[in-house]
């Protein structure tokens, strides 16, 4: 990967800010009144139990899911939620790194790097040669896949979890994202590969970018994040700096969240 060169200081405070953001799926309220601001060089760790709304939140921020109400600001500019889409989020240089959910299994890498934003002529035909060339370039320069038997024509289904993660990371780097969202990037990875993902998160910080980092491993996220945001049943339960809350205290806090509240039970 390229070394962590600092980007020129951008002229905005928050890369993304949500205000009273709500998402509902039919009668189910998945997110309620989310207020969240992410500074231009913030690493925000998003934690919470399964079903707390972590994935829904990042889907709302990246245009996959349409919020039912609330406001969204990107680089301090208000966003028209009715017209916000993944395409817009890509154009605004938001990138998502999912392990399982962002690569087409049966498709070659030259398609996977560019799906949804292909290099096309004006009739919509893909410039395969150019996409192949760039895909190989990403593989070789960013990821160091040279000579390991992976090229632009390899299909995703033949890759290991770590390799897939590398592909998604390489894609985020190629498109020069300002905000990189990592959704449980270390799940089911070998220890060596986990280390590489953590290095990548550090690179994001050093190069002046921002990240939202969803992680089950509290030790990882506690060590890397500038701020921890705890989601619980669709609401923000806490937002703290790791320095203010030790790893043990954080763990206890999360366990306490799971206990049925005495006041309600009585």
């Amino acid at each position, binding site marked *: 990967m390229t*070394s962590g060169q600092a980007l020129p200081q951008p002229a905005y405070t928050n890369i993304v800010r949500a205000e009273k953001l709500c998402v509902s799926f039919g009668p189910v309220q998945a997110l309620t009144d989310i207020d969240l601001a992410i500074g231009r060089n913030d690493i925000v760790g998003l934690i919470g139990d399964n079903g707390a709304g972590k994935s829904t939140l990042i889907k709302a921020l990246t245009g996959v899911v349409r919020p039912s109400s609330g406001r969204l600001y990107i680089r301090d500019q208000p966003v028209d939620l009715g017209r916000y889409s993944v395409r817009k*989020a890509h154009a605004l240089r938001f990138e998502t790194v999912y392990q399982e959910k962002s690569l087409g*299994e*049966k498709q070659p890498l030259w398609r996977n790097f560019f799906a949804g934003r292909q290099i096309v002529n004006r009739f919509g*035909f893909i410039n395969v040669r150019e996409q192949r060339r760039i895909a190989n370039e990403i593989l070789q320069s960013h990821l160091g896949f040279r000579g390991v038997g992976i090229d632009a024509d390899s299909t995703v289904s033949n890759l290991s979890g770590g390799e897939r993660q590398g592909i998604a990371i390489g894609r985020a780097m190629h498109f020069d994202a300002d905000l990189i969202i990592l959704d449980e990037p270390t799940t089911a990875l070998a220890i*060596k590969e986990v280390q590489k993902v953590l290095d990548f998160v550090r690179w994001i910080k050093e190069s002046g970018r921002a990240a939202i980092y969803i992680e089950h491993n509290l030790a990882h996220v506690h060590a890397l994040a500038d701020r921890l945001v705890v989601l619980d049943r669709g609401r923000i339960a806490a937002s703290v700096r790791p320095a203010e809350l030790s790893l043990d205290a954080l763990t206890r806090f999360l366990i306490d969240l799971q206990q049925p509240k005495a006041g309600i039970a009585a």
Partner: protein
Amino acid sequence: MSGARLHRAQPAPRSLSPLFAGRKLEGLPIIVVFIALIAVFTALAPHVFLRWPIYDSFLVTIPPLLIISLGLTLVIAAGEIDLSFPAIIQFSGFLFAFCSLQLGLPWLGLIAALAGGALVGFVNGILVAVVGVPSIIITIGTSFFWSGVATVLCGGLSYALPGLENTPIANIFAGKLLGVPAEAFWALGVAILGWFVLNRHRFGEHLLFIGDSRSVAEVLGINVRRERIKLFTLMGVITGFASFMLTVQNLNYFATQGQGTLLSALAGVFIGGSSVFGGSATMVGSVFGALIIGMLEAGIVATGVAGFWVEVIVGLVFIVAVVLHIAIESPASLDQLRRRLAVRGPRPDHATKEEIP
């Protein structure tokens, strides 16, 4: 982050079969089956298969079916299915026949056939992509509906269209060019266009990703809903065209037109090697799949085997072709089979039983 190299956990075999190592020729297994079949037919009935007329007749009868198989390939690529095309053959054919005979406007009839197909396909697309009914279910329903509409409109009657003979529209779509039926050129054109749409166009790539996984496609920013509506509409237009071609080459509209094409067109696609699970489809395979399906019946009859055997042989060819695809694409499954057979082997109790007189 200089040390960030993600190494392979374990080197997996990349080239799946030494026979097809290197750059794979699309549809190779099915091309082999096709050539083998021609060879068998030629050996058994040289007086038929070494002469031109049989091929001339193939190039007339196969194109409508082949064009539908090409459209279906796109549908299968997206992990969907369309069972309503026989009804479109009926419905669009009626529209063309009606405009030609009652209004005397065959070119309007062509447009009506395409538009009618588009309408049926668009309704399918809305029901699948917006309402959310699985395509295998809803296209059964729409198939009944549009077939019924066509029957009501034509009153169950056939339309003879002898007036179209030697008109420009008949010559362009069902005449001869350099001694070769025009239908063959149209089918070839649709096949080439279809190949580029599936393999080189943004739309085709979107279909492949949708067939691979709808949720991944959404995350990548593909408008899954819109692309699926477009897909079914396009399938309707393509079928409308095939139906028009069928009607104009017969110079007749049959009220039962389209019946019996359902399994043949689907068989062409799957013999060709497209995956029913979506995300992977081959236009070349579908061309040869449709050619095989289209020539089996005439071929079998020409070799002197009784006509009753046709379906048995079609079934056999289908099974062999599909197994061959698996053998080439995932030899691991064949190894497994071989191991399983080896374990079973000749059973000891078998041997003892045979020894008893």
